[in-house]
C-alpha cells in the first residue's frame, strides 16, 4: 500500500473512534454502529475461510452462537466478569471451529458446504433444546452490565469497546493473511496437491484456518450479547450464516475494506428503507447473484480498479538476491546413511486401480547425483510412478526406500520434507499468486516462527520473511525469472510456468528433483534452456528423475534411462544401449519395426 494511502486509512480509522461525538442518537451508535463492528469481526474471520482458504462455510452462525451462549451463560450463571467470559467464548468458538474444520480435511466444494449447513442447524437445535443451560426458546435475559473497574461500556459507550476490537481483529487477519500462513492457505486453495508436494501440511493449515476464523466468530458472539442484553436461538439461523456470506462477497473477499463495506451494507440497508424488511432476502439474494457474475471482487474490487494501481514494489523493495548466487541448497544427509547406498530404490513397487495394474513390480534405482530418465509409451505408468514416489498414491504392494529409509504411508507433505521435490505434468502452479509467492510457498519449510510471531510481527518473523524473499529472488534468477517476480503466475507464458515450477521445487532443498515432462509443449529454444538447467542441477550434486518424451533431451542429459511398458520395466541402461534395445524399439515403433525397416 502506498504510504499516503496507508496514512489516510489510519487517520480515517482513528477519526471513526469519535463517532459518538458526532451523533449521540443511541440508535445509530449503539444499535447500528456496534452491530457493524461486531459483524466485521466475524466477517473478517469468515474471509480467512472463504477468501483465503477457498472453502464455503454456511455454518458461521453456529460459531457465533457458540461464542454468544458461552459468554452469556458465564456472565449470568457463573457471574464471571466480561474479560474471562470473552476469552472463554473465543476458546469455545475455536473448539467449535475445530469440529467444523475436521470435515474440511477430507471434503471440499458442495460436500463441505452441506456439512457446514448441517453443523449450523445442529448448533441451533442444541441451543433450543438444552434448556437447562440456554433457557431454550426463551433465551438468556438480564445480561449484567459491562464494566471494567471505573469504566462502563453501557449504551453508546459499548462502541469504545467494539470499535477498537474490530480494528485489532482486522489487523490480526491482515497479518496472518500476509504471512507465510496466508500463503499456505492460498496455496492449499489453488492446488491442494501442489501445496502438499511443496511441503505444506494440509492437515495443519486447514484446521488452523477454521480455528482462527471461529475464534473471531466467538469474540463477535461475546460482544453481541451486550447490544440487546439478550440472546435467543432465533438469531442464529441459516439465514444469518447466509447474510454473513453476502456481506463478505458483496464487500469483496480478501479485503479489509471490503469486509467493512459489506457489513455496513447488510446492517444499514434494512435500516434506511422502512419497508425494506419485507424484501430484505430478495434484495440480498439479488445483490449476491449480481456480485458473483457482474462484480467479481465486490465493492472492494470496484474501488481497487478505480484507484490508481497499487504499487507492487513491496515484492522487490526489501531485499535483493542473497549471496549464494543460485539460492540452491542441497540438503545435508543426516546420520550414518550419508553417502551409503543408493539415493532411492523401489522394491517390487506395484499399484492397481480396480483391476488395472498400472505399475507392476517395479525395481527402480536412482543413484546419488545422477540424472535418471524414465521413458515409455503413453499409458505405460510413468506418471503413476511419479505419484507413487511422491506420496500422492499409496502402493498396493512393494515400497519406496529413500536415503536408506523406507516410506511408510508417507503423505506428499512428508515426502517433500524428506527431500524429494517435484514438478507436474499439467503445470500445477498457484495461478493467482505472484511468481515470487509461488517460490515462497516452496520455502515454507524455512519458517519456524509460530502464530504469535506472525501476529506480533516479531523480529524473528521479519527476518525469516526477508531471508526467504531474498532466497526466492536468487532462485528466480537461477531459472531466469527474477524480472517477473511481481507478475501473477497464471499470466506467465507456458514455458516460463514450467521454469517457475522448477524454481518452486528447488526451494524445498531437495536431494532428488522429479521433473514430470518439463519440456512438454515447449519450443525448441525453451527445451534447450531446460536441458541447460538440468545440467546445472547435476553439477550442484542434485539427483534428477526426468520423465520426458523429447528423446533428444533425454538422450543428451541422462546418465541412466529406464523404459516402462505396460507398467513394467523393460530395459534400463545408458542412453546408447537403450536406443539399440529391441524391446524398446518395439514398444515405441510397433512390433514390425525391424521387418519394415529391413525391407529398405
Amino acid at each position, binding site marked *: 500500500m502506498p504510504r499516503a494511502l496507508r496514512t489516510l486509512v489510519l487517520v480515517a480509522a482513528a477519526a471513526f473512534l469519535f463517532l459518538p461525538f458526532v451523533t449521540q442518537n443511541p440508535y445509530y451508535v449503539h444499535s447500528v454502529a456496534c452491530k457493524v463492528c461486531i459483524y466485521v469481526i466475524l466477517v473478517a474471520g469468515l474471509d480467512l475461510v472463504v477468501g483465503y482458504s477457498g472453502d464455503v462455510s454456511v455454518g458461521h452462525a453456529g460459531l457465533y452462537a457458540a461464542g454468544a451462549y458461552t459468554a452469556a451463560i458465564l456472565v449470568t450463571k457463573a457471574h464471571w466478569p466480561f474479560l474471562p467470559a470473552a476469552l472463554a467464548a473465543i476458546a469455545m468458538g475455536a473448539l467449535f471451529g475445530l469440529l467444523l474444520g475436521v470435515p474440511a480435511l477430507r471434503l471440499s466444494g458442495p460436500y463441505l458446504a452441506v456439512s457446514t449447513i448441517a453443523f449450523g442447524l445442529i448448533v441451533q437445535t442444541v441451543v433450543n433444546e438444552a434448556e437447562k443451560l440456554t433457557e431454550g426458546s426463551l433465551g438468556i435475559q438480564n445480561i449484567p452490565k459491562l464494566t471494567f473497574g471505573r469504566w462502563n461500556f453501557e449504551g453508546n459507550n459499548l462502541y469504545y469497546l467494539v470499535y477498537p476490537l474490530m480494528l485489532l481483529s482486522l489487523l490480526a487477519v491482515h497479518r496472518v493473511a500476509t504471512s507465510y500462513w496466508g500463503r499456505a492457505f492460498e496455496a492449499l486453495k489453488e492446488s491442494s496437491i501442489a501445496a502438499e508436494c511443496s511441503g505444506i501440511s494440509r492437515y495443519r493449515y486447514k484446521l488452523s484456518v477454521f480455528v482462527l476464523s471461529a475464534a473471531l466468530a466467538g469474540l463477535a458472539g461475546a460482544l453481541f450479547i451486550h447490544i440487546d442484553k439478550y440472546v435467543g436461538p432465533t438469531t442464529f439461523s441459516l439465514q444469518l450464516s447466509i447474510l454473513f456470506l453476502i456481506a463478505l462477497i458483496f464487500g469483496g473477499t480478501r479485503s479489509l475494506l471490503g469486509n467493512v463495506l459489506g457489513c455496513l451494507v447488510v446492517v444499514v440497508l434494512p435500516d434506511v428503507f422502512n419497508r425494506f424488511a419485507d424484501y430484505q432476502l430478495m434484495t440480498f439474494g439479488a445483490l449476491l447473484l449480481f456480485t458473483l457474475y457482474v462484480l467479481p471482487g465486490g465493492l472492494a474490487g470496484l474501488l481497487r480498479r478505480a484507484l490508481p494501481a497499487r504499487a507492487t514494489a513491496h515484492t522487490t523493495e526489501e531485499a535483493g538476491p542473497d549471496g549464494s548466487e543460485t539460492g540452491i541448497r542441497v540438503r545435508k544427509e543426516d546420520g550414518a546413511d550419508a553417502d551409503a547406498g543408493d539415493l532411492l530404490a523401489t522394491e517390487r513397487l506395484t499399484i492397481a486401480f480396480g483391476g488395472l495394474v498400472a505399475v507392476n513390480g517395479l525395481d527402480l534405482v536412482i543413484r546419488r547425483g545422477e540424472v535418471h530418465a524414465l521413458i515409455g509409451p*503413453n499409458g505405460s505408468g510413468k506418471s503413476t510412478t511419479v505419484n507413487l514416489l511422491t506420496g500422492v498414491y499409496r502402493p498396493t504392494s512393494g515400497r519406496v526406500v529413500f536415503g536408506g529409509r523406507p516410506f511408510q504411508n508417507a503423505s506428499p507433505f512428508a515426502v517433500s520434507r524428506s527431500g524429494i521435490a517435484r514438478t507436474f505434468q499439467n503445470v500445477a502452479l498457484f495461478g493467482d499468486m505472484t511468481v515470487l509467492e509461488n517460490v515462497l510457498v516452496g520455502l515454507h519449510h524455512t519458517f519456524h516462527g509460530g502464530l504469535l510471531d506472525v501476529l506480533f510481527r516479531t523480529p524473528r518473523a521479519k527476518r525469516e520473511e526477508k531471508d526467504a524473499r531474498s532466497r526466492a529472488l536468487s532462485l528466480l534468477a537461477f531459472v531466469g525469472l527474477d524480472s517477473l517476480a511481481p507478475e501473477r503466475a497464471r499470466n506467465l507464458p507456458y514455458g516460463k510456468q514450467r521454469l517457475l515450477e522448477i524454481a518452486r521445487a528447488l526451494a524445498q532443498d531437495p536431494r532428488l528433483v522429479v521433473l514430470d515432462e518439463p519440456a512438454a509443449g515447449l*519450443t525448441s529454444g525453451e527445451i534447450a534452456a531446460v536441458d541447460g538447467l538440468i545440467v546445472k542441477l547435476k553439477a550442484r550434486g542434485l539427483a534428477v528423475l526426468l520423465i520426458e518424451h*523429447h*528423446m533428444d533431451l533425454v538422450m543428451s542429459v541422462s546418465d541412466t534411462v529406464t523404459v516402462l511398458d505396460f507398467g513394467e520395466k523393460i530395459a534400463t541402461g545408458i542412453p546408447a544401449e537403450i*536406443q539399440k534395445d529391441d524391446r*524398446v524399439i518395439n514398444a515405441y515403433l510397433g*512390433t*514390425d519395426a525391424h521387418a519394415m*525397416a529391413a525391407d529398405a
Partner: protein
Amino acid sequence: MLEIRDLVVRYGPLEALHGVSLSVPDGKLVAVIGSNGAGKTTMLRTISGLLRPASGAVELEGRSLAGLKPHAIARLGIAHVPEGRRVFPDQSVLDNLLLGAFSHLAGTPKAEIQSLLDDIFTSFPRLAERRTQLAGTLSGGEQQMLAIGRALMAKPRVILLDEPSMGLAPLLIDEVFRRLEALKARGITMLLVEQLAYRALAVADTAYVIEHGKIEISGDAQALAKDPRVRAAYLGEAARPDSGIGLRT
C-alpha cells in the same frame, strides 16, 4: 473429403499446433504419426470441435466447420474414436452402439438400425456375444472394437481414430489393425493418429509425421516407412543411421 489448412491451436498450451495442413481423400486411410505430445490428439480434438483453433480452417467436403459445436460436427458425419476409447462404462454394449447412432436415430427406420447392428456384430463377433454386458467390464481390446463399432453406427463420412493401439497387448494390436484394413477395403475414409509408426504406415495410403506441433515429413506411407527420419523422430537424433548407433540392417 476432409481438408485442414494452417491449423493453429493454443491449448492450455500443452500440445499446441503451429500451422498444420493435411488432406484426407475420399476412401483413403491417412496416418499421422509422431511421438507423444507432438500434437496428434490436439489435431483430432480440433477437427471434431472439442477444441477451438486460434486460426486456420477445417473443411468437410468443402464445407467449413468453423464455429460449430461438437455435436453439430458429429451430425455432419465425422465420427471420432477418442484416445483411450472412452466407451460409456455403465451402459451395455448394445446401448453404446445405439448411442453411436444417436445423431440419426430419430429419422432412421428400425430395420436400417438393425442392419447396421448386424453388420457390426458380423465384423466384431465378440461384441455380439457380449451385447448385454456393461461396456466397462470389457477388456481393453474389446472396448476398442466397441469404440470403432460405435463410430460405424453413425454412418460416418470420415472416421477419426486416436491411438487405437494405446494400452493394448501386441496380439490385440494386431487384431485392431486387421480390422482397420478390413474397413479400408470397404472404402471407408479414415484419419488415423498413432504412435506405433510402423504399424500405422503398414495400413495407411499416405502419412504425415508430426513433431512439436508441425508437420515435418509427409508422403506415401510405404516410402515413409523406409525414411530414417521417422525413426529419429521417436528415439532422438542419435538414432539416425548416419550417426552410427542407429538401425541394424
